[in-house]
């Protein structure tokens, strides 16, 4: 088997962004891609958010650390902690120790740094950009998100948020000292304030206002990260890979992902389907024949029928997965690759190597 050009090209680039919803094997696929790249002599870093304990151990990431760790040969791994990165950013940019503590302890900050849509993604990029120059290739396992597209929109969302001009203009003058310092001039402004007061109360607004005041100095560095992230995503050396599973619910997702990338002029390289029934992948396994004439003399009649029924149900599952795979490929217009379901969880370098071999078959260097 020859390596697929879509994968070869991605491995020859500078950054691979591995997208996909949670639970499809994104981390494993990222690690396998990095292993394949390291195997062809490129100094590669895989950045992952939350690897399973055993994968963490085999990648040498047992300790919580924000620095690249050597795994083996040219393969390095780094564990990302978006909350930690965010806290570090606050520490670096806060004007004083008091300002720093005010931000870190504010409950809005605690909520935002944990949950605001886009912050995890941007923080992942922030951590990554700090070490990018040391490596030939970085494989970024994107944070678990509900949808594959969430990552692409992260910079815009964060920019929307930190574009606090509107927000600060609105909040600052009115809530200083916890009371309305002056009446908004417009009827919309006045009515809106009245609604807010009755809905959430001025105590709530005061805390929010305080947060923005404390956070003010950080907006700029935040914006810079988001802008740099946008630029990096558009770089010629950056490709996107979608990880998926062969099921009905994933078909439209593949199409939406490809569409979203095209709309943003970003470069998609492939869809990788994980945990595919081996019978649905040509060359991965040989399914038994269900014909009456093929063997069976070793079994009692009832047992033979039972085994054949079982195999028939298995074949139905495999056929369905094969169908979904083809649909994912057709509807997304992307190269679709399949990794057969392995008997065990992928948690060591050997089994990672098996996955890598499916994505990038070892052979004469191209």
């Amino acid at each position, binding site marked *: 088997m020859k390596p697929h050009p879509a994968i070869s090209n991605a491995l020859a680039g500078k950054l691979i962004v591995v997208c996909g*919803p*949670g*639970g499809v094997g994104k981390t494993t696929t990222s690690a396998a891609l990095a292993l394949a790249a390291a195997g062809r002599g490129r100094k590669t870093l895989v950045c992952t958010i939350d690897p*399973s304990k055993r994968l963490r151990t085999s990648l040498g990431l047992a300790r919580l650390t924000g620095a690249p760790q050597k795994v083996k040969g040219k393969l390095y791994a780094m564990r990302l902690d978006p909350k930690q990165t965010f806290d570090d950013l606050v520490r670096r940019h806060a004007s004083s120790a008091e300002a720093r503590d005010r931000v870190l302890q504010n*409950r809005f900050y605690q909520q*935002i740094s944990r*949950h605001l*849509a886009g912050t995890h993604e941007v923080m992942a990029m922030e951590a990554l950009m700090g070490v990018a120059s040391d490596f030939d290739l970085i494989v970024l396992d994107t944070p*678990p*998100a*509900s*949808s594959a597209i*969430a990552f692409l929109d992260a910079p815009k969302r964060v920019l*929307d*948020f930190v574009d606090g001009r*509107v*927000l600060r203009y*609105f909040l600052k003058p009115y809530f200083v000292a916890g009371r309305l310092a002056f009446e908004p001039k417009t*009827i*919309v*402004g006045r*009515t*809106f304030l*009245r*609604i*807010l*007061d*009755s*809905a*959430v*109360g*001025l*105590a*709530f607004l005061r*805390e*929010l206002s305080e947060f923005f005041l404390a956070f003010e100095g950080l907006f700029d560095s935040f914006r810079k990260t988001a802008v740099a992230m946008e630029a990096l995503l558009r770089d010629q050396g950056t490709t996107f890979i979608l990880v998926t*599973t062969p099921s*009905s619910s994933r078909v439209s997702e593949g199409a939406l992902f490809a569409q979203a990338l095209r709309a943003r002029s970003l470069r998609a390289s492939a869809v990788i389907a994980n945990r595919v029934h081996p019978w649905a992948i040509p060359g991965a396994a*040989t*399914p*038994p*024949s269900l014909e009456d004439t*093929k*063997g*069976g003399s*070793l*079994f*009692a009649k009832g*047992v033979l029928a*039972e*085994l*054949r029924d*079982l*195999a028939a*149900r*298995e074949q*139905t*599952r495999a056929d*369905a997965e094969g169908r979904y795979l083809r649909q994912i490929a057709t509807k997304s217009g992307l190269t679709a690759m399949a990794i057969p379901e392995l008997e065990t*969880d992928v948690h060591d370098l050997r089994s990672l190597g098996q996955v890598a071999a499916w994505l990038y078959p070892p052979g004469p260097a191209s």
Partner: protein
Amino acid sequence: MTPGSSRKDEGPDTDGVLFVLGKGGVGKSVVSAGLATLAVKRGRTTLLVRIGESLEAYGGGSSSPTRARPGFDELDLRPRAAMDEYVQHVVRIRPLVERITRSEVYKKFFAAAPGLPELVLLGRIRAYFDETDRLGKARYETIIVDCPSSGHGLLMIETPFAAFRAVPVGPFARLAAQIIEWLTHSVRIAIVAIPEEMAVVEAIEFKEDLEARTGLRPALAILNRMRLESLSREARLALREVEAPKGSNDHLLLDCARESLRRARLETFHRRRLARGLGLEPVLVRELPNPRPLTVAEALVAETA
């Protein structure tokens, strides 16, 4: 349960408000639709609320249910739509409402105020729960809420508790307190998982986080996508004793059966682990080639019978 009607099947209890939670990709949405369909089959007036994959402040959705068929309403609820409706309720002057809800300040405030979208959403669902007709009969006997997946779902439920702890006075706190009361006494929580390592581990962690942060506990566990294959005693004996030549069709058949047996044992392992971790025996849902609300509703009943 409403007087005069009773459940005849053995499936899970679908009366009242049920929040359906689970990791992404476990079939939470189709299980929610299956539960709603089951409630409709039982003669309950039912509302299926879909919050969708994330608590998006912007875009889409509505805040009024559409009738799917008699006795069954559906609603794609988005925080923004619910908030707009709230503004409308308070202001009442339509042109002014539009000017407010279209203004940048309003949009940004709504997106940036932590906890507000979650509280507004929960408040809206609670309002459906309280709605009655002129005779005082509840508009909905069953409300199934298809929640955002794991982390976001937990965040949504946790918000009123966190908000109340942070600012225990004022209208915001009163709203939070009312929602806490409702969540604690009138809402049941269902956790959906599939027989896979990550999904089961996450379901158990979810239960622990939920309890630690809110004191709430799941009332229902659903283990979806179970193959539930079993082998007869004779077939298992054949697996041990028959030696088929390697590469022969018999050998392939035996391999397939062995794999099936291995999987069945794994399913049992995950079922027991989930039951132990949640303190609940899960309702099993058979793997369906192309799951639809109706077939899932049937499957929800079949394995408990």
